[in-house]
């Protein structure tokens, strides 16, 4: 009863603030704006069915699907050792349009490789194709309706004359997962403004919106505004003339403070839930994709806020000033982010053997690697050094991660909450749902192996310590 009373009191206090209504108003505007977004499928059957064909011959998780190149494909096919299955034609059945709802016939050119486990023409190959076609990573992007040897009148067969080649026809239909890979044109305000281009996979568009708009800017605004609102909770409670009313009630001071803390968390949980569930529903209605990964971000943002709110409570109890609590909490947020970024940078330097985009010569890097010039693209840079001795000569490996400064940053990072890790965790959840492994670049899914248990435990201990000190101070101080 007491807990609920304090919870209601906290919510009442938060809702009394005009900032709260500004935040709700912004959320409503964002939701309404999202409802005006249109995703219109463009011609993408060939690309999606080609992607669905990949698992027949290779393991797609080995590939960077965002930047496919023939050499990488060939290496992967040889590694899988199942023979070569290459789509040579994708057609819709009958007069159906090139759309995610249509059925397609995919003609596969199949060629044997030496010592393969199972080669084209062997018994059971049709069944193998049926079981592997469209199984991309965790996703099932196409539903196979039929697999058979290609008829002689298939135009793609007659057009290709290769010795030892065999042809198969796969009749398949894109699934809901397949729709996420399907290129769509993006427009806002019910088509009034359409973004140029031939379309981007729907899942990738949703990922961009959810990761950068919702989990990026949106979460940042929610957390910042919540810090401002909730930083008043404790100092207001401790005001002379107000605190007396509470201290004479039969409730322990530490319990009172903890309930107040939970009240603040409940506030942001409800706010975040409103914004994220609203956006999720709006995006679901407009895109037809109901990926639930984004809903986990509610818990992650709440936990992230719990870290900052414990700081706010600590300074609130210590100083009794909401302004001091807001400023010191924002400062702490900056320190945590900076520590996370710096640690990430040194980790990257260490993992890439001390070679970074900064100490490699940029023009050569881009020209030789031919891939992303992003400083995170350590893999291609290293490949470039191997392939091109000229580049290797111009690179001086850095051992900055061994400096006293780096070691100090590591030490601080070791004991402080891992807010950057939480950010990574959110990205991870969104990627799992919306983007096939490697579709937007390998580094997002695999390059940062994080120990979630350690991250959450360290952050949890930090929260407990700060709250413990706050409770001790509050319980022993005379008011």
């Amino acid at each position, binding site marked *: 009863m*007491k807990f609920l009373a304090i919870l209601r009191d906290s919510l009442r206090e938060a809702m*009394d603030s005009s900032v709260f209504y500004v935040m709700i108003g912004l959320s409503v505007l964002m939701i309404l704006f999202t409802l005006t977004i249109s995703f219109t499928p463009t011609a993408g059957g060939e690309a999606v069915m080609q992607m669905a064909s990949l698992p027949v011959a290779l393991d797609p998780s080995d590939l960077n699907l965002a930047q496919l190149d023939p050499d990488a494909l060939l290496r992967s096919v040889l590694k899988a050792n199942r023979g070569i299955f290459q789509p040579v034609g994708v057609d819709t059945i009958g007069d159906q349009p090139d759309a995610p709802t249509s059925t397609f016939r995919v003609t596969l050119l199949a060629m044997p490789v030496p010592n393969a486990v199972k080669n084209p023409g062997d018994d059971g190959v049709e069944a193998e194709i049926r079981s592997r076609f469209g199984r991309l990573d965790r996703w099932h992007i196409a539903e196979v309706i039929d697999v058979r040897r290609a008829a002689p009148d298939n135009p793609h067969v007659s057009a290709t004359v290769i010795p030892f080649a065999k042809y198969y026809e796969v009749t398949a239909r894109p699934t809901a997962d397949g729709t996420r890979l399907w290129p769509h044109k993006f427009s806002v305000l019910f088509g009034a403004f359409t973004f140029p281009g031939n379309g981007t996979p729907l899942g990738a568009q949703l990922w961009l919106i959810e990761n950068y708009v919702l989990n990026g800017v949106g979460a940042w605004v929610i957390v910042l505004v919540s810090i401002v609102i909730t930083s008043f909770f404790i100092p207001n409670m401790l005001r002379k003339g107000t605190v007396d*009313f509470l201290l004479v009630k039969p409730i322990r001071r530490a319990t009172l403070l903890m309930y107040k803390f939970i009240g603040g968390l409940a506030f942001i949980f409800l706010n975040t839930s409103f914004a994220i569930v609203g956006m999720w529903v709006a995006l679901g209605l407009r895109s037809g994709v109901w990926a639930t990964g984004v809903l986990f971000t509610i818990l992650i943002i709440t936990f992230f806020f719990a870290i900052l709110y414990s700081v706010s409570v600590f300074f609130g109890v210590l100083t009794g000033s909401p302004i001091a609590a807001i400023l010191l909490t924002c400062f702490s947020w900056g320190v945590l982010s900076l520590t996370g970024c710096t640690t990430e940078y040194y980790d990257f330097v260490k993992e890439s053997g001390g070679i970074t985009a900064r100490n490699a010569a940029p023009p050569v890097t881009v020209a030789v690697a031919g891939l992303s010039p992003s400083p995170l693209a350590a893999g291609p840079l290293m490949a470039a050094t191997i392939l091109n001795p000229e580049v290797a000569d111009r690179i001086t490996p850095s051992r900055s991660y061994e400096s006293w400064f780096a070691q100090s940053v590591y030490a601080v990072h070791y004991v402080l909450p891992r807010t950057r890790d939480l950010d990574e965790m959110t990205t991870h959840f969104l990627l799992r749902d919306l983007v096939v492994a490697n579709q937007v670049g390998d580094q997002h899914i695999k390059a940062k192996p994080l120990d979630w248990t350690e991250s959450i435990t360290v952050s949890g201990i930090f929260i407990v310590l700060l709250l413990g000190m706050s409770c001790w101070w509050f319980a022993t101080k005379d008011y």
Partner: protein
Amino acid sequence: MSVIRTDNLVKSYGKVEALKGVSISVERGEVFGLLGQNGAGKTTLIKALLGIIKPTMGEALLLGERAGTASVRRRVGYLPEDHRFPDYHTGASLLNFYGALLGVSAGERSRRIPEVLDVVGIKGRMHSKIRTYSKGMKQRLGIAQALLHQPEVIFLDEPTDGVDPLGRREIRDLMQTLKEKGATIFLNSHLLGEVELICDRVAILQRGNLVQIGAVSDLTQQHGRYSLRLAPGDALPRDKFVQLGYQIARKSGDFWEIIVPEGKTIDAGIACLAESGLRLRHLVEQRQSLEELFIETVEAAEPGVDYSRAHRTRPARGDGYR
């Protein structure tokens, strides 16, 4: 057994001693007044009794238990001085919140809240935001929250502060009603006239020391000092009175102030008047007002300080000293 008892209570803030070994006891059903100048330690004493601050030394017992325990706090009501309510509440929602913290059931709260707000006279505004209340209404709300759970002991720190004269009388009547119902009231007020009217006993604190404690009637009584008036045309037999050992202090209008020395009574004087054929119209044993007692006590505690002048420099808080 005393409802409130402190034994040699000391509270220090660094080098400053706010309470210097205060020992008091208050019995059940008593209305006890605590007097003292600003900074005398009155609020410190109340806070120590309620467990809001921890005493440096000594013991404070409330309802037979150590002061400040949760079980004791459940049985105590408190109106702090200079209180500030969270103004995002309405009067009713605030009482609902405090009632829940006190462990009052939801059903009981919904019954008691309108009742107690009606008692203090703000039921009609119970659903208005507190920020729209006047100072007097806030004070009444403060009293309402102190009474909500029907406590056995009620601590009221300046309960009539900001309340208009009519409201003061209502609050006084309310305290009288509570007293009749058996509640013990610990009152801290600068309005000495009111304290005198309501309280059974008072204590005076001066710079953390307890300098006076006792029943109001005992403390204000002036033994042997009488006010006397004779019928028009009759003259006081001054010589006979002097022979009786009486001292004639002064004459104010038709009233004579007679001081009867210790060991003698006024009865001899009354007989003397009768024998002289004089007609007695008025004879009252004089009492000191609580205000006079307070000033006298404070001056005695710190001779040489002109409190009437000091009072003029503190108009906001010194009204009660006049």
